[in-house]
């Protein structure tokens, strides 16, 4: 339904434009500007064209090699995170109680990790994993594992993944739980009457009804994990060696460590484009998966009629369910 038009309303948007221009567009243009120039300090800049981009995307160069190594590392990390957190989140959501006082308890417990600042999470796990005073590190060493996140690549990855799972799985679980709660009881009753197994109930009712929230969960978790910085920086500082140097960490190293503003700017732009591209792919795939491109033009068979229908007068189900 359209609202009455009043063009003066556009004036209300002006402040937002100003803020966005100041906070996003101007810095972005600065970055674009840096990415096509070189500097030797003293605020003196030279035109470099697409030189940085060429170097960045050529694995043979020093910069390109470094970039691709960090990119694969980051992609691997995101893949592991999604592969663990999404199924785990679903399982947790499915095993949460549906009513009673335990619901509130579960929700509070699950919300706790989400409330802790990133750097504090890093510090917690840094201490937790230490071999001398950390409960986990000490315990693992006592059990005979050679565990040291500053020394072993596997140990470092293990700790970072575990830390992220601890920090963020409840987000996925809470989203899924909200999706599950919106399924009417009649569906479960009908499935029982139809003799559906627990697994069939999951695949035919729960999963399809959760599709929308899962899309949001996957997008959020991908973007967050792909941009992860604080926790591994606090925990391992990118090491051992470069084993946990993700794109964001590398970016900061180049920009602030070496003060290669041109390279860093080119890297940020490419980084941004990758995130946009991957999100777009996820979104397109997930919204089209399962959507029906059914045949039209067979009204006698009981298809929803193509009447001149204002939405407000149709959907009786929604109105009554309200």
């Amino acid at each position, binding site marked *: 339904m359209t609202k009455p038009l009043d063009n003066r309303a556009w004036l209300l948007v002006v402040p937002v434009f100003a803020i966005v221009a100041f906070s996003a567009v101007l810095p972005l243009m600065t970055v674009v500007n840096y990415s096509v120039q070189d500097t030797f300090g003293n605020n003196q800049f030279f035109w470099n064209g697409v030189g940085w981009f060429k170097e960045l995307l050529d694995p043979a160069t020093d910069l390109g090699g470094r970039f691709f190594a960090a990119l694969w590392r980051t992609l691997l990390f995101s893949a592991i995170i999604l592969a663990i957190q999404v199924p785990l989140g679903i399982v947790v959501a499915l095993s949460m109680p549906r009513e009673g006082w335990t619901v509130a308890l579960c929700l509070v417990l699950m919300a706790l990790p989400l409330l802790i600042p990133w750097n504090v999470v890093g510090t917690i796990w840094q201490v937790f994993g230490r071999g001398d005073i950390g409960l986990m590190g000490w315990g693992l060493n006592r059990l005979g594992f050679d565990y040291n996140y500053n020394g072993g690549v596997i140990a470092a990855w293990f700790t970072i993944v575990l830390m992220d799972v601890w920090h963020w799985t409840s987000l996925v679980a809470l989203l899924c739980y909200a999706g599950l709660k919106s399924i009417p009881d009649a569906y479960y009753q009908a499935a029982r009457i139809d003799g559906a197994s627990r697994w069939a109930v999951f695949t035919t009712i729960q999963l399809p009804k959760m599709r929308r929230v899962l899309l949001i969960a996957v997008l959020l978790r991908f973007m967050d994990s792909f941009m992860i910085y604080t926790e591994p920086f606090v925990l391992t500082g990118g090491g051992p060696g470069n084993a946990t140097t993700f794109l964001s960490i590398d970016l900061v190293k180049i920009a602030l460590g070496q003060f290669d503003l041109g390279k860093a700017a080119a890297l940020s732009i490419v980084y941004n484009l990758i995130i946009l591209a991957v999100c777009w792919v996820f979104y397109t795939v997930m919204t089209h998966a399962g959507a029906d491109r059914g045949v039209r033009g067979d009204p006698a068979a009981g298809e929803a009629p193509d*009447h001149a229908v204002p939405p407000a007068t149709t959907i009786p189900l929604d109105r009554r369910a309200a």
Partner: protein
Amino acid sequence: MSLVLEQVSKIVGAETHLRDVSLTLERGSLNVLLGATLAGKTTLMRLMAGLDVPSSGRVIADGRDVTGLPVRRRNVAMVYQQFINYPSLSVYENIASPLRVAGLPRAEIESRVREAAALLRLEPYLDRKPLQLSGGQQQRTAIARALVKRANLVLLDEPLANLDYKLREELREELPRIFAASGAVFVYATTEPSEALLLGGNTATLHQGRVTQFGPTPEVYRRPRDVVTAQVFSDPPLNTLRAVKQGGALALGTGGEARALGAFAGVPDGSYLVGFRAHHLELDPPSGEAIVLPSTVTVSEITGSESYVHLACGGHAFVALVPGVRRLEPGTTVDASIDPRRLFLFDESGALASGDLAQAA
């Protein structure tokens, strides 16, 4: 207030929701919008309220063009199919809420709320929360809140649809009295012909976004302008058959014949669609000038104090609505009969050629 709609249309994308609707709603009148779901009733109400702007045409209130005026700046109240109340407020506070927003003095609020509560018989429940009330009482609360504002225009969108059968009947009987006590323009949307008849006032029949007829309710019911209006205003559905009028006789598609007396004597010869309502089809022995339709019973159903008898007659299916309980075994043959004065004759374009003249006179 009086409300005039001039050639109002509403088009969204490629779909026409309303087409060239012109209506004049008088001060203090009750107007029923009758039509099936999707006919455009809610769209029309939203335009009247100012929630939407028509794609073309004008809305005029008391002689002033209010077409683009937003709902906030009009004095409008709305009641919906769902029972919409503030769950955390008492019934009293629910009814008082529009007055509190308007900043009326306390004594004025008190007297107006008491008055509305008395009209809707809510006095014993003023201290309760809406969820402690029955559906009927919840909807009464919503209606009281709409009335207490003393809005110029009160819109009710199928307000009884979510109520139990008996509660609906009870409230339906009370509504005309409640409306009569106020001076506003009332607009009441419903899908049920019987509701329109009980409410009286004026009725606009809607079909696929068009107002097919607008006038005093009994007149629209007894003299529908065309076949669509007759269909919209008939429950059970209108019985129809084809017939050819030649000279003084009407040859029916079922094989029977009727003398073209009284009502349709002046109608030119030609082919017509004949329509008649279920309760005019009688199963008792015919009296006087009746058209007899020899039929076979297919099903008989009791609906409470009446019975539906489904008949097959010369390849046509008819429904008769007869008073009391009539159990007829499927296969029974009956001589159904109809008074020719009860027939509607619609010409090729669907317009009423003649019919029910005796009643209209």
